[in-house]
């Protein structure tokens, strides 16, 4: 099973304060362990929302609003993609992440083609497989 681990934004991440060298080194170690265990597939940090935008869709038209966005508990600052056997295993890995001081992460299961059942027609399934094969080559 694949999981997305969503790291929540903080005052610092929104202010563009880069993590300390110590924290980056600790994260690097943690990432290395996950890679060694064949768990980590990707991990990225995001620039503050001030460099971003939001789009809303109404009547077939898209409206654009530039960041920054309110710092709620739902704002994102980074993520990992990991592969584990269960949610519990994903949780166990993430308990070891070198976070502190009220940091929060959210773990969410990624859809796989099998999850869609009948809704994913054979044609759509082929399209999806082609798409994946090509993007994974990048």
């Amino acid at each position: 099973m694949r999981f997305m681990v969503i790291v929540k934004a903080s005052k610092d991440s929104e202010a563009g304060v880069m993590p300390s060298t110590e924290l980056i080194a600790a994260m690097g170690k943690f990432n290395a362990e996950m890679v060694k265990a064949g768990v980590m597939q990707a991990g990225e940090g995001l620039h503050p929302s001030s460099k971003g935008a939001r789009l809303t869709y109404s009547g077939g038209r898209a409206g654009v609003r530039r960041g920054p966005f309110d710092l709620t508990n739902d704002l994102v600052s980074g993520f990992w993609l990991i592969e584990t056997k269960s949610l519990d295993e994903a949780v166990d890995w993430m308990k070891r992440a070198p976070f502190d001081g009220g940091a929060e992460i959210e773990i969410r299961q990624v859809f796989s083609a099998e999850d869609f059942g009948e809704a994913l027609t054979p044609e759509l399934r082929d399209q999806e497989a082609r798409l994946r094969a090509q993007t994974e080559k990048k």
Partner: protein
Amino acid sequence: MRFMMLMIPAGYATAAAGTMPSAEAIAAMGKYNEALKEAGVLITLDGLHPPSMGARVSFPGGKPVVTDGPFAEAKEVLGGYWMIDVTCREEAIAWAKRCPASENEVIEIRQVMEMSDFPDDVQEAAAGSTELQGRPEH
């Protein structure tokens, strides 16, 4: 530059476990994904199961505390994401505008941090961990 397009569907925070997009929505998104791929813009994409099937881990005082989903206080949650490679934020916005999103969906665009965005000492501390991410630097 890499950007994440974060899909935020209203109401997904309280969606029941096993909630799936409709066949029509999947077909429309498939076409859009195909267009992203044809243009050489798409790096990867995923959909996420509802938060009711996930968990949150917070770190008060550095100790992990696990909360199972759904998350009562969550207003906005991710339903999925695209990772794209474009020349600027405007191009990312132009692509997001073309998304066949519905009126209850918002797309947030966020720039991904590249190692070159970090100061030298941080780059040194993180040396080696970019290869761990399984993708070369852009």
